[in-house]
C-alpha cells in the first residue's frame, strides 16, 4: 500500500500535519536533513517543493524561496540524488510538489519511475489539470504507484469535486480560499462554511487543507473539518529567519 494511503488510514485523530518546503532553500544540500528533522518532530507528511522559475500559483514567500533554491543550484537531477537514500531514515509519506514544465522536460514517465525508485509516494502538480492527467498520464502514475493529488477551491463546483474525487487515489488538496499561497492567515466564516460544505459531501478521499495555515490556531481550525493541513509559507518564513535549527520549535508551535 502506498505510504500516503497507509498514513491517512492509521492517522485516526484527524490532525495530520503536513509541511511544505522548497528543496534547495535556504541552502542547497539540506533537503534530507530538513525531512529528517520534520519527521523527528512529529510531522506526518511532507511536500518537497521542486523549485520552478515561474511558480504562478505561489505567493511571494514561496516564489522567493524557489528563486533562491534555483540560484543555489537546485535541479531535478540533484533533488533525486539528494533523496536517493531518504528511505533509509524516513518513513512518513513524501510528496514532490512542482510545476508541470520541469516534470515534462524530465519526461513524465521517467519522473514517476525515479520517484518510485527513491521512495516518493505522490505528486502535486498545480498546473496539471485533472482532465489532462486523466487522459494522458493516469496510467503512468498508477503503473509506478505514484499518487497524484488534485486541488479543489471554494469555487470548484460540486460536480467537479465529485469528478476529482473519482479520479483521486490518496487525498484531495483543499485550497482554503481561492488565492495563491501565503495570502491570508486565519479563517473566517466563508472558509469554515466551505470546509463544512466539503466535509458534508462525504467524499471517498480524505481532504487535507492548504493555503493560509500558519499557526496552531489555523491548524486546529482546518483539522476540525479535514483530515490534515499543510503549512508552506509559514514554514519557509521560519526557515528564513531562524534556520533549520528551529524546525523543532516551529513544529511544536503548530501542534501544541
Amino acid at each position: 500500500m502506498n505510504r500516503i494511503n497507509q498514513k491517512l488510514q492509521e492517522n485516526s485523530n484527524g490532525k495530520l500535519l503536513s509541511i511544505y518546503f522548497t528543496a534547495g532553500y535556504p541552502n542547497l544540500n539540506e533537503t534530507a536533513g530538513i525531512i529528517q528533522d520534520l519527521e523527528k518532530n512529529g510531522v506526518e507528511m511532507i511536500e518537497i517543493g521542486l523549485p520552478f522559475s515561474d511558480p504562478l500559483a505561489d505567493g511571494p514567500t514561496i516564489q522567493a524561496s524557489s528563486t533562491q533554491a534555483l540560484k543555489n543550484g537546485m535541479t531535478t537531477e540533484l533533488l533525486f540524488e539528494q533523496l536517493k537514500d531518504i528511505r533509509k531514515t524516513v518513513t512518513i509519506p513524501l510528496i514532490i510538489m512542482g510545476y508541470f514544465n520541469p516534470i515534462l522536460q524530465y519526461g513524465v514517465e521517467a519522473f514517476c519511475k525515479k520517484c518510485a525508485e527513491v521512495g516518493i509516494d505522490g505528486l502535486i502538480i498545480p498546473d496539471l489539470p485533472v482532465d489532462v492527467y486523466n487522459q494522458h498520464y493516469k496510467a503512468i502514475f498508477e503503473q509506478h504507484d505514484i499518487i497524484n493529488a488534485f486541488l479543489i477551491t471554494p469555487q470548484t463546483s460540486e460536480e467537479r469535486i465529485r469528478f476529482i474525487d473519482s479520479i483521486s487515489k490518496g487525498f484531495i488538496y483543499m485550497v482554503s480560499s481561492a488565492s495563491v499561497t501565503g495570502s491570508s492567515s486565519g479563517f473566517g466564516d466563508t472558509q469554515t462554511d466551505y470546509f463544512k460544505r466539503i466535509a458534508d459531501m462525504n467524499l471517498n478521499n480524505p481532504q487535507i487543507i492548504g493555503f493560509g495555515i500558519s499557526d496552531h490556531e489555523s491548524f486546529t481550525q482546518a483539522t476540525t473539518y479535514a483530515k490534515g493541513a499543510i503549512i508552506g509559507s509559514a514554514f519557509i518564513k521560519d526557515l528564513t529567519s531562524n534556520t533549520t535549527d528551529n524546525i523543532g520549535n516551529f513544529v511544536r508551535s503548530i501542534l501544541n
Partner: protein
Amino acid sequence: MTYNIDEKGYYGEFGGAFIPEMLYPNVEELRQNYLKVMAEPEFQEEFNALLKDYVGRPSPLYFAKRLSEKYHTKIYLKREDLNHTGAHKINNTIGQILMAKRLGKHRIIAETGAGQHGVATATVCALMGLECIVYMGEIDIARQAPNVARMKMLGAKVLPALSGSRTLKDATNEAIRDWINNPVDTHYIIGSVVGPHPYPDMVARFQAIVSEEIQWQLKEKEGTSKPDYVVACVGGGSNAAGAFYHFLEDKDVKLIAVEAAGKGVHSGESAATSVLGKEGIIHGSKTLLMQTQDGQITEPYSISAGLDYPGVGPMHAHLYTSGRAEFIAITDDDAMTSGLELCKMEGIIPAIESSHALAVLQHKKFPPDAIVVVSLSGRGDKDLETYIKHFKL
C-alpha cells in the same frame, strides 16, 4: 492539416489549458461562452462600431513607394500604428472588454510588456468605467515610461512585477496570481495569443480583423485579395495571428514570422523562441518556450519590450513545427536600422517590435512583382528614447 484551433483547444500538439484548479471556473466560463458571445449580433455590432468610430478602423493598407523602390518589390504596410493608442493591441482589448461586460465582470487585470497592451486595456476600462490593474515588469516600467504615464492618465493602477527577469513573463505571472486571488469579479485581459485555451483562439479572432481588411484592401488596390507574403513580428504572436488569420489555410500566401534575436540568436541574449525553444508549458499553454534542460524558463532578451517573451503562442508553435510559416530572427541592431530607415524613407516611426518585421527586407530577397504585406503593428512614440540613445541622435 489545419492551422486553426481544434475543438479541444489545440493547434496540432500545442495549446490546451494547463492551469491551476483555482483558475478553472474562470477559464471554463470563458471557454463555454466566448464563441457564443462573439457570435451574438449585438456583440458584433458593438465590437464593429467601436473598431470603426473609436479605434479608427479600417487601418490603412499603405503602399510604401520609396521602400518598394529600394527593395525592388511591392511593399504594403498594414498600419496598425494608426489605431487609437498606437498598436494592434486595442483590437483585442475592445473585444475582451465587451466579453468581460457580458460575463458580468467589473474588475479588469492585464499584463503588459511594451506597455501597449496595458495602455489599450486601461483605455477600454476607462471607456467602460471599469477598474483596471496592469502588471508590468520593473524593467519595462523603466524603458517604456511614456506608456506608464499614459496608463496613469487613463486611471489604471500600474503594479510592478519584481520577480524573475522583471519583464513581460513575470508581469504575466503576477497577473495570473491576481486572477487566482480574485476569481469571481475579475476578468484577465491577456494581451496576446498566449495563455490557456480559449485565450489564444479568442485573441486571434479579435485580431483577425487585420487580415480581413488586408483581403479587401488588397483587392481594391491590386485586384487580388491574396498577398504573396505576410510578414509580422512575434512576441506572443497576436499581431502575427491577426495578420495571418484569414490566410492560414491558403498556402499561396507565404507567412513570415519574425522573432527577436536580441544580440544574436546564440549570444545568450535573445528572444528567438522558435530556434531556442523546446516544447513545454508556459502561462497555461503547451507551446515552444525558451528553457533550461531542467525546464526552468529562461530570461529572454530583446531591445524591444514587446518581443521580450520566452514563449510564443501555440498557433505559432504549430506554424513553426509544421513549416507553414517561415521564422526569421532579427537582431536588435538590424531592427533599429530598419526602424530608422522607415522614419527617413516613409515618414513613419515604427514601434521597435514592428521594426523587426521590417528588417526582413534587409535579409530576404522578394521577387519584384511580389506583394509583401508587412504588419506595422505599432508606432514608435513609446520607443523614442531607445532609438535616440541607440543612434546617438
